[in-house]
Structure formats: C-alpha cells, structure tokens
C-alpha cells in the first residue's frame, strides 16, 4: 500500500476517535475538520481533485465554520454537562453494540473485486471536465433540480435578511 495512504488513514482514524473522545466540544469540532482534510487527501490519492476541493470548500470551509460558530456560543463545559441516568447509558451501549454487530455481519463476506474485467476504466473520471460532462449529460435533471433547490434556499435567506417595514436597526 502507498505509504501516504497509510499515513492519511492513520491520521483520519486518530482524529475521528478524537472527535468522539475529546472532552471539549471545540476540540471535537477541530478534530472533525482534521478528519475532513485527511478524507480530502484520500480523494486526491484516488485522482479525484474536484471532489477533494469541494469537500474542503463545503465541509471544512462552510459547514464546520457554522458548527464552531454555534458551539462557541453554547459555553459547553464539564460543569454544565447534564449527567445522564444509568439506564440511558445502558440503552446507548446496547443500541451501539447491535449496530456494530449488524455492520460486521453485513460486511464480513464481502470480497473486493475491483473493476470487472473487460469494462474500460477511465482514470480521469475524477477530473473536473469529465465529471462535468457526466453531470450534464447523464444526470442533467437531478443536477438542475438540486441547483434550483439551492437557489431557492439562497433567495429565502435574502428574503429573511430584508428590512421589514417598521423594523429598527437597534
């Protein structure tokens, strides 16, 4: 295996564990950002530059900033953390354990086959132009619908920000 892959996977697993185990919620968010960066590194290794860049822009650059923004206001720390009853902890352990069991059971017989012999594999599929061609030919309708959805969301945000009659600045 590529040493860069091993390194990225190691950091990804470590920082993903950090998200769960960090006491301070701000540290958790920062670990999550680090996880996104390592995932982008994996995308780059898979020759998918566009997905790597978009992953950073959308997740690390926008969504996580909002996460951090909210958590900074919440003033979460050890003193204010509510203590959960033992029953809830038990239920969580049982539910999580069953989910792990199901995942292991579902995935244990999988054999990685790679690309089926005979199908031409295009190593450039992750590049912007190839991806764009695919999106605008095979997936045109869902793509356009999604873009209209985003436009509506943006117009909604602008409408919310508009000054209403009788509104004061302060």
């Amino acid at each position, binding site marked *: 295996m590529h040493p860069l892959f091993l390194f990225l996977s190691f950091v990804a697993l470590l920082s993903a564990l950090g998200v769960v185990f960090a006491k301070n919620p701000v540290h958790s968010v920062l670990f999550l950002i680090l996880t996104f960066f390592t995932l982008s590194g994996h995308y780059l290794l898979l020759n998918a530059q566009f997905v790597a*860049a978009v992953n950073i822009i959308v997740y690390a650059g926008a969504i996580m900033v909002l996460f951090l923004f909210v958590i900074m206001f919440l003033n979460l720390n050890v003193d204010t953390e509510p203590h959960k009853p033992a029953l809830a902890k038990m239920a969580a352990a049982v539910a999580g354990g069953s989910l792990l069991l199901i995942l292991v059971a579902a995935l244990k017989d999988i054999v990685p086959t790679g690309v089926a012999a005979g199908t031409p594999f295009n190593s450039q599929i992750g590049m912007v132009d190839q991806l764009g061609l695919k999106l605008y030919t095979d997936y045109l309708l869902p793509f356009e619908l999604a873009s209209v959805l985003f436009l509506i969301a943006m117009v909604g945000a602008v409408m919310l920000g508009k000054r209403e009659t009788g509104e004061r600045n302060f």
Partner: protein
Amino acid sequence: MIELPALGWQSIVIFVVFALSLLIATYCTYAERVIAAFLQDRVGPDRAGPYGLLQPLADAVKMFTKEEFFPGGANKVLFVVGPCLAMITALMSSAVIPFGNTMSFGNNLFFLQGIEVNIGMLWIFGVVSLGVYGVMIGGWASNNKFSLLGAVRAASQNISYELAMGMSLIAVLMISGTLSLREITLQQSVAGEWQVWNIVKQPLGFIIFLVCAFAETNRTPFDLPECETELVGGYHTEYSSMKLGLYLFSEYVNIFVVSAVMSVLYFGGFNFPFQYELRDWFINSQGWELNSAQNLITLLGTVGLFLKIFAFIFFFMWIRWTLPRFRYDQLMRLGWTILIPLAVFNIVLTGALILFGVI
C-alpha cells in the same frame, strides 16, 4: 517507489513564491505607513535607515523581543494554534497562481507556477474559506468577550461574503470554461487575435469580487472583527509579541494573494499589450532565437503581473485611509441583500450574453 517531490524545479518556484510573499508582506507594513502619511499629509516613518526603509526590520525586532503573554484561563494550545493557522492559510493559496508563462532552456520547459492543477480556482476559494479558522480559534481561545465577539463577527462576515464571491467567480468560469488559472490567463491574450482582458467582459463581476475581497481580508471598510472603537482590538485583543505579528502579517499576505488573484482573473495575469508583436520584433529585427525572446517576454510578463499586484495593494491601502468603517448591520445588509442578488443577476446576464454570442 516514492519520488521525493522536494527536489524539482517546482519546489524552487514554490520557495521563491514563499519568500516573495513574505518580503512583499513585510514591505506592505512600510508602504501602509508611507501611504497613510502621504494621504494624511504627514511625514511617516523616516528614522530607521534611508527613507525609513529599515522600519519593518525594527518592527520585527520589537515584535520578537516583546513579552510572550498568555491571558488567564486561555486555552494554551489553541491560543498558539490560532495565529499559526492564520499564517498557514494565507501562504497556502499562492501555490496555484501563475506568476509567469513558460521559460525554456534547451529542451526543458519550466512553468513559473508552483503547481498547475485543473482546480486552481477551487483551491483558491477553498483556502480563502479556511482563512477564518485562525481568527475564530484565536479569538475563542483568548477567553475574552471582546475577542470572542471579534471572532464571531469574522466568521459570519466571511461566510456571508463567500457566497457573493463564489458567484462572481462562476461568471468568470462561464466565459472561460476552465478552472485552471493558467488557462484563464492564456485565454485573455491569444497571438494574432483581438482579445480583451476579462475586466471588459465582467465589469460587474469584478466589482462584486473586489468588495468581497475587502471583506474576506478584513480590511477597512469591513474590518469589524478588529474594530477598536467597539471591541478594543477584536480577536487579537489578548495577543502580543510575534503571535500578534503573525496575525497582522497574515493580513498583508492575504492582500497580496487576493491582489494576485484579481490580476489573474480580471486583468490578464502575466499578459501585457503587444507582447507577441514585441517577441516577433526581437526575432525578426534583432535576430534573437525564439527561446530567448520567449524567455524575455516571460520575464517582462512577470514584472507586469507584479506591477498589477502592487497597484491593487496600493488601492487596498488607499481605501483604508479614505473610507470610514461600516456599521455591522450595514455590512450584513450589503452582503446579503445587495451583493448576492447582484451576483445572481450577473450570472444571468453573462449567460444571456454568451447565448446571444456577444462575448
């Protein structure tokens, strides 16, 4: 088999760009004072060295020797990580900017660009959107309400203006059809054709981008995260010594990078008028070889790009010492209810003009 990427020509280019960014940022601090003095009819720095040229050096000595201070109750690790992140993200984006065309020695062709990728514009946009983390983390870790307010202002301001910035970039994408900054530059000047720079095709988009660039670099009139009349010093209230220096420095590196991006996207990058005629004149009338004439044009183009960048940096400083600061609600209103609808209109307009074959 792993090849060490640290030993090639590109690494030399990256190192030079790194050194140049720092040098330009250093002398931006000097230029800022000189321009402020000029605009306010003062003398400005004139003590350290001839014309005060050694002033940045004196500042650096001051910064490095000041007391390293940690406020009580601060998160020590994140307090140090904040300024580091601000500096790292500022320096990262210059990697994909084409600072010049190709140089050829013998059969070897060299690009005056750190890395040529086909996602150059996305890279710039991504790194710019990461720039806010340094401010946010530093402001939060200071354990000070003014710092936190500055950090929160920075975050909401950056997110709001990123939207309009991204949409003004989309209009450039529509006319260029590529995300590679080198391709965008080359399209703005083609040998034997009458081509214009993108500013002629995208005047509205350029104005939107310019306003957003001011907001993203936290410069006046959008420097509310560090607004001293309301927030003491904003996110860097508690910082001293070189950690404060890194914050101030990263602002100038950001200005340099954003100026470079504007020059590349809208003002022809390393192209200058009549470059092909000049090259042909060197070949035909002076008897130069094609390679050496091309190399000379490349160097002239790099000088031209830097002149454009310096003009933009001067513009940033000119605005800072001319315009007062916005109020925070005015800033948000401008971003959401004026710039974003304008950017959408610009996209529609560009689409219509392309459809009818005007541009």
